[in-house]
């Protein structure tokens, strides 16, 4: 498996096949006497923006302090939760519990559900 080609930027699905973002960053452990290994997947936050330029990383941090869901720490999934790597990456987690879709829920609760005809969050199915 090639990490950049096969893992980085791939779509992540939880155990219910719910989209929960993309692989924005990979965390590796490089020990003195052991082979480097991937330990975590980073989702969202300033991580992808930092890959564009540190300036965008700082901007993303600042904006998140002004507005949006309260959770502050980086969403980080242990590599041991990876089930399959294919067209997308399936994780053995519940998207809601990881914080990966905090923004989705926050926008649904604070904006979308106040507009008539938005339906309920639990209804319908999708990709």
């Amino acid at each position, binding site marked *: 498996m090639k990490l950049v080609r096969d893992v980085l930027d*791939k779509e992540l699905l939880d155990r219910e096949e719910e989209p929960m973002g993309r692989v924005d960053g990979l965390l590796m452990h490089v020990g003195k006497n052991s082979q480097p290994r991937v330990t975590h997947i980073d989702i969202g936050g300033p991580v992808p923006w930092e890959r564009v330029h540190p300036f965008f990383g700082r901007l993303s941090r600042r904006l998140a302090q002004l507005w949006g869901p309260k959770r502050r720490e980086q969403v980080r999934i242990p590599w041991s939760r990876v089930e399959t790597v294919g*067209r997308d990456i399936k994780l053995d987690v519940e998207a809601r519990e990881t914080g990966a879709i905090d923004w989705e829920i926050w926008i*649904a609760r604070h*904006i979308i559900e106040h507009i008539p005809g938005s339906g*309920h*969050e639990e209804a319908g199915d999708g990709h």
Partner: protein
Amino acid sequence: MLQITLGIITSVGGFLEIGSVTTAVQAGASFQYQLLWAILLGTICLIFLVEMSGRLAAVSKHTIVEATRERFGFPFFFIVLVGMVLVAFLVLVAELGGIGLSLQILTGIGFPWWAIPVSFIVWILMWKGTFSLIENGASLLGLVTLSFAVAAVKLHPEWGGVAHGMLPTFPGDQKAKYWFVAVSILGASISPYLMYFYSSGAIEDEWDESYIPINRFISTFGMSLGGFLSMAVLVVAALVFHPMGIDIQKFEQASLLLTTALPKWGFFLFAMSMLFACLGAALEISLAIAYFFAQGFGWNWSEDLNPARDARFCSTYTIIIMLAAVPLLFGVDPIRVTIMAMALTSATLPLAIVPFLFLMNDPIYLREHRNGWISNTVVAIIVLISFVLAVISIPLEIIGG
């Protein structure tokens, strides 16, 4: 049948819209049939590109945006996102303006007054409608644009001259304007948002490899229909406006396009054609922009979901449509926005098309269904021509006013 409508909406809503009509009318009025080659070239390129977009989705189950992010990484994806969304946003302003202008000539009430109601209608169709409602509704209503073809035939053009116009020729005078209009026509024909919309539509309609033949038929038939109707607009403009020496600057002038051929219904048919074509395009562009963000960032997305289930996707198109209404509210001329947006589309084509060609030749995504050398060469050459012409003619047009 349902799949064929995807082609028709993509052609009528996406191909024939304010951009292609305005540029074709300008070309016909100023240069008679001389610029028909630009529509032909743009249509050929678009047929190839749309076919590729459908094939990528059917084989790899990826939309273009998803594959771009995965293959080239976030930083490059971000550059494409900024370029494409800015240009698509300008085109959306132009389309909403086109609906406003159509209502203005029908009712006499100025287009800025229509900015809010029109945006609201576009938004509510997206909010409440499903993908197939948008797909089928817009294609059916868009069929009124066939009136351009009826008018072209009724005016008995000189077919030899029309055929001659299909071959590129150098202009006698007004060189800068000639090339600028050619670039605008190419930009109006080869619209990248069409590809994003089409490949997302193929995923929404759950295409698989068995759709490859039908995809080829849809893209060829749909885009040819769009190109054919654009050519009809140019031919009618050449016959109606060119002899009078009218240089089309205003929508009101263009609205008389069909009245010579169809005196009784011409004015009404023109207004309705523009109204429906721009409405289809506005829906398509708003969806394409929302797809771009949602697919690139890995959000939940589908036009068929309840808005609460894909909140970020729905808030994206809501914000985009609201923002697009602002310039119109302040009376910014939609025709000027259109001309600028079309030329900019040409100038930014390599940003959209070059990475796409890489994807289409990647065995990881396409396996044995990769591009052949013909499609690679045709698309690369046409995009190169559009880009070079854009880089040369846009500054010339600005200097020349």
